[in-house]
């Protein structure tokens, strides 16, 4: 493992350098206790100890709205639109890196999503060790507490003025040293980073799954036909889709288009959609394959708990806790749902 030690005053210089080549996004407080990734500028205060960004980072690789093609209605021709700005996400927590790794696999499977791939290739990810744990998070229970790939650099703050920076890619190392040579990390500094990780892990034990996460697919599958349970859980669901929107692993989209005023040219774009919205599984003629909120609610937990697992071998939930915060009816909580199912049938699995 190659690692360096970077001191806080160096960071500003590097940020200036990096921002000349790509757009840099950093976590910052946007409201009392609310954090978001914002475009870096000299006067922005970076929240090194943020607990959770309200929205997920998928927007950087799968924007809420993204053009796919442009078309000419007179000539009836169309061409691909693939936009991929160079960007750096500086300060990404491991659960969000895991979510992005998952999107990478899902978007590359069967056929490569060229729009996603282009954006992802132009996105540099600098991970950041957490200091605080969001009260809704349970990433320690779903194996999203650490990642071994998906970042170019991984930063751990080991003292108020210093970071232990682990190299994840040649691109990352190059960026770190572009302002001149940097100090190789010592064994003691590596140990300090390890202790920092253990410290946050200890905090994270408060909220977790009561069972080994790998049992989740089996659990939810056995509970699929328990309509009483799903109906009860979803009875106040407003089908607003907030959980979908903030989820770092939800990537469903709709495809729409618009033409210009002269009906000559137009654009076709995709736009985030959500399986919790009422019309999501509707077909021509109005038949809806998941017409009730409880069916859509169940689908979401099945997807996170089983369907993604069947494809990738890991849970589709990274335990970030965003849906718990965003849910308008206060009923989205994968940790509670999966724990309840576990308590109900733990003797059967």
């Amino acid at each position, binding site marked *: 493992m190659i690692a360096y030690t970077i001191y806080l005053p160096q960071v500003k210089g590097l940020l200036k350098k990096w921002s000349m080549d790509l757009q840099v996004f950093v976590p910052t407080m946007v409201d009392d206790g609310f954090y978001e990734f914002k475009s870096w500028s000299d006067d922005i205060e970076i929240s090194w100890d943020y607990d959770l960004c309200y929205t997920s980072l998928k927007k950087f690789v799968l924007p809420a709205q993204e053009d796919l093609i442009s*078309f000419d*209605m007179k000539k*009836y021709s169309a*061409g*691909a639109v*693939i936009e991929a700005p160079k960007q750096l996400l500086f300060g990404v927590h491991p659960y969000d890196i895991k979510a992005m790794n998952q999107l990478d696999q899902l978007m590359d499977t069967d056929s490569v999503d060229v729009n996603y791939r282009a954006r992802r290739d132009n996105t540099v990810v600098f991970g950041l060790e957490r200091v605080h744990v969001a009260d809704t998070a349970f990433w320690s229970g779903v194996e999203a507490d650490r990642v071994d790939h998906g970042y170019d650099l991984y930063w751990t703050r080991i003292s108020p003025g210093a970071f232990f920076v682990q190299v994840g890619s040649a691109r990352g190392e190059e960026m770190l040293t572009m302002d001149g040579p940097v100090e190789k990390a010592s064994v003691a500094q590596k140990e300090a980073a390890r202790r920092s990780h253990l410290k946050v892990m200890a905090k994270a034990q408060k909220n977790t799954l009561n069972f080994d996460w790998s049992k989740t697919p089996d659990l939810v599958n056995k509970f699929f036909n328990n309509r009483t349970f799903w109906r009860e859980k979803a009875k106040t669901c407003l089908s607003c889709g907030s959980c979908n929107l903030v989820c770092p692993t939800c990537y469903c989209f709709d495809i729409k288009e618009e033409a210009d005023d002269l009906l000559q040219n137009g654009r076709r774009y995709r736009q985030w*959609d959500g399986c919790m919205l009422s019309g999501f599984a509707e077909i*021509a003629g109005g038949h809806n394959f*998941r017409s009730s909120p409880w069916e859509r609610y169940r689908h979401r937990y099945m997807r996170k708990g089983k369907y993604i697992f069947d494809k990738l071998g890991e849970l589709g939930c990274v335990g970030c806790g965003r849906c718990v915060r965003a849910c308008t009816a206060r009923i989205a909580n994968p940790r509670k749902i999966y724990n309840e199912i576990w308590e109900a049938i733990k003797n059967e699995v």
Partner: protein
Amino acid sequence: MKSKFSPYVPRPATLVAKKELNEFVTLFEFAQDSGKPLAHRPGQFIQVSVYGVGEAPFSVSSPPRTDHHHFEIAVRKIGSVTNALHALEVGNKIGIRGPYGSYFPMQKFVGQDFLFVAGGLGYIPIRSVLHYMLRHRDEFGRIILLVGTRNPGERIFTDQLAEISKRNDLEVFETVDVADDTWKGNVGVITTLFPKISINPETTSVATIGPPIMYRFVIQECSKLGIPQDRIYVSLERHMKCGLGKCGHCQINGINCCLDGPVFCYTEIAGLGEAL
């Protein structure tokens, strides 16, 4: 930035003929501008674009052709894209992507008897399989076709059905749910045709396509006849938006109807709570 390749870019095709099948359903014959055959297999679907309006998935209704770049879809006027299609005139263009999805495994049916059960617009994709078999008639055993429609006014491909009904190598049975004065045939849902047929369950395979409500009843009738589940094929309708297994709209439990379907052997979906 314009790029070389994206699976979202449609290819142009031109409308060469248009035929009204009933008040709401029209058959469209398109020619690919590339001059190349569509190269679909029976049961597959394509994404059809009317620029400025949108894109929607349709089953190809014509059988595959290697010698010709024409293909047909039959469309019910029901939403924005389908209405825009109905407004097209011969010579107008559309965009297409695909063909996508699974298809009927024709090789498996060689030498077999075959039972088609088509409800309503389900006849449109069935037609692709049926006419493939009729073109290669000597490769298959008995072919029995059951067609059900809500009422006589909604029947489609009536001329073609009348034509093929005359063949002595094809057994055609038709019914309507609700009759009117013009209707002299069977009245009742499609399962009322089952008592009229006799098949050898050892050698018969089934393809059934129809409205969502129909499947479980037809499968039940097939089981009563002794046809094993692994010889019952269905094609399921979902709204595929991307056709590439990404957008999530066509998901049935954990599978994507656009990639794993739309054609399924019943055994593939028997355990899926959201399939039928």
